[in-house]
């Protein structure tokens, strides 16, 4: 009888110790997890976060090319400044204007062309930690014909992917 009572006591003590251990362990792990989750956060914004259109020149332009556009205040701003032997270049698109207007100026063949790019704009969101931007869908492109022969849309979607050209531009022949 004494032996059985001793075994019962021992078993009861073990259960008590186990329960206490579980409680302590629970508290410790919850505290650790709470600290991890509330103290740390990761920011995962895309590294390549530039949205632009890529123009591929048919061949190489043997001329000096300058591209400007007109801002809200009426002043011109230079987007491409006196580039020579151009094979490709990038131009931004406005966030919300339905048509963007660009002025292409060349010097060897004195020419000033206007290019109109019509598009749809879609707001794009990554995270509250990253800046906001817009993606676009190209609808049409028009131009004057002094120094530009034609412009063809190759890819409609304008997003972070700058690896493939959106336009192919054919300039008139230079000597």
């Amino acid at each position, binding site marked *: 009888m004494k032996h059985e009572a001793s075994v019962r006591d021992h078993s009861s003590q073990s*259960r008590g110790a*186990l*329960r206490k*251990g*579980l*409680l302590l*362990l*629970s508290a410790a*792990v*919850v505290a*650790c*997890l*709470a600290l*991890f*989750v*509330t103290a*740390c*956060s*990761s920011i*995962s914004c895309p590294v390549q976060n530039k949205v632009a259109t890529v123009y591929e020149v048919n061949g190489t332009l043997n001329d000096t090319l300058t591209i400007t*556009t007109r*801002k*809200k*205040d009426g002043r011109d*701003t230079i*987007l491409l400044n006196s580039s020579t032997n151009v094979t490709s270049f990038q131009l*931004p698109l*406005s*966030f*919300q*204007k339905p048509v963007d207007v660009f002025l292409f100026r060349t010097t060897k063949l004195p020419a000033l062309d206007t290019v109109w790019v019509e598009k749809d704009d*879609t*707001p*794009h*969101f*990554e*995270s*509250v*930690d*990253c*800046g*906001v931007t817009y*993606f676009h869908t190209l609808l049409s492109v028009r131009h004057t014909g002094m120094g530009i022969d034609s412009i063809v849309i190759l890819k409609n979607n304008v997003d972070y992917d700058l690896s493939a050209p959106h336009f192919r531009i054919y300039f008139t022949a230079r000597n």
Partner: protein
Amino acid sequence: MTCRLPISASISRLAISLLLIFASCLGARAQLSLKYERDSIPLFRGFAVSVDLAGLLHKALGSYGQYEAALRVNLHDQYFPIVELGIGSANHNNDGVTGIYYHTRAPYFRVGADINIMNKKHTGNRVFVGVRYGFTSYNVNISRPGLVDPVWKWDVNYDISGERCSQHWGEVLFGLDAKVYGPLHIGWSGRFRFRFSHTDGIMGKSWYVPGYGIQDGSVLGYSFYVAIDI
């Protein structure tokens, strides 16, 4: 060139390692077992309702969190089918760096089951592993007041209102449940959540997903609950 892991991946590894260490320690001491314990205890042992305190804490300390309750069935102190219902919300107002407002509030649910892996099932304390399936359908409002086009300098109205999103996800979890007094239990669980599918509307991505957390392919989560056997 070295490749640095993002901090979330490091934390994930650390937390999983800790859970494995705890599991192995408990395994040695408490003799974990998946065997069905054959005894005179009936199969149906009642229900338990619980309230998650971790979501409330998260909501109080940060800009997102959830109110969550669960109903758990006790089958032979070993199997615990469970339904978790909650309302998750995020109110991220005028971010200090990006100036973005992000609002969402929506219900979610998870269904699944836990298995008590302790060798002695009927002590009232439990060590369990479990799985969950979760779903939520939610609307988000995102705005960025005062945005100006960086090239043309036109004012931009960046406002996404009521964009409808949804997500299906799964969870695997490990946790402890301790009997405190009478029918009162407390417990915690660490959860690895992984996305099955999601719809994010026109804007590409959402940020906080009710019941899941910050949008990503997989995330770590946790719960700390108080439960009462009924």
